[in-house]
């Protein structure tokens, strides 16, 4: 009886079934891909990844079975990345000094594949929502799923994807053979 209270908290929320292993790790791939698209450094990437995991855990009770768990995970991941990016931008504006030159963003060589690094660099130059849309498209999500995750209309997704692909082609023009 001595540890009954602790056990209730532990078994319901923490230790008995490892939420991270069961519900987040199977989708770590897409979380990693999304977080990479919104960050320029390894430290930021790890922060974003951790925050996404925490938010998935926090909002697990709001999950409605109308959509797949994976869709729910994508949606939270995207929202967290967009929120953190906004926060970082605001912080940068707030602390920006007039005397410091605007340093170029640190380039990440996150992957061994050079073409993939270049593709990520190009994706990072897209608008915030476009980054999410193209990543989901590349993950072979249907237009309807992309619309559900990004909270937009499925009819616009096709047009949007084509426009983004065109932009990426221009950005990568001649860089990749």
């Amino acid at each position: 009886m001595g540890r009954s209270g602790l056990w209730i908290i532990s078994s319901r929320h923490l230790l008995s079934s490892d939420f991270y292993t069961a519900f987040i790790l199977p989708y770590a791939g897409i979380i990693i891909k999304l977080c990479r698209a919104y960050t320029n450094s390894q430290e930021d990437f790890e922060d974003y990844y951790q925050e996404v995991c925490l938010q998935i855990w926090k909002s697990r009770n709001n999950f409605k079975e109308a959509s797949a768990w994976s869709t729910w995970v994508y949606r939270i991941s995207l929202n967290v990345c967009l929120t953190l990016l906004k926060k970082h931008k605001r912080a940068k504006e707030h602390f920006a000094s007039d005397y410091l030159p605007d340093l170029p963003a640190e380039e990440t060589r996150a992957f061994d594949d050079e073409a993939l690094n270049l593709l990520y660099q190009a994706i990072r130059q897209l608008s915030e929502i476009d980054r999410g849309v193209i990543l989901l498209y590349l993950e072979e999500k249907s237009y309807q799923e992309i619309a559900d995750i990004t909270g937009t209309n499925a009819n616009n997704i096709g047009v949007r994807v084509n426009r983004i692909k065109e932009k990426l082609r221009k950005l990568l023009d001649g860089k990749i053979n």
Partner: protein
Amino acid sequence: MEKSIEQIWKAGFLDSKALISPKVNDLYTRKSEHIIEKFKRMFRFNLKAIAVGGIMGLGGLFMLKLPITGITFFITLAVVFIVNKRELDDLEKVDKCLSSYDYLKSFDNWMKDQVSMNARMAKFYYPFIFLGASMGLWFSVHGPWQYEFLFGPPTSDW
């Protein structure tokens, strides 16, 4: 021939090293903090409800011309509020820098203290409220009417 972005994407992620997830630091500690923060918010809300309920009860019972009941009710809730406010202050002192296990353990100890304290108080405040309500009715300006309403007309045995 230039590769399409779809091909680059697929080829890049064929390498299993590309998708190694980073180590999640301190997730359990942060989860524990989240649980306890949620509990604290609820506890604070309950304390506010007790304070508001006590004041409104006092005003309402005075308006119903049952001042003794109102005062008893108010004093009881004030004592519950003060004791639990102290308990909450103690909870705020739990060190967040502890490991997740120690943090939960401290929380668990606090919870046991709090439950035993409230259980001991309940032995006094329920009878006190009952006594206050009975005396309030008995000594109220409409005493006989309310007494009759609750317990029936006085009999000749009285």
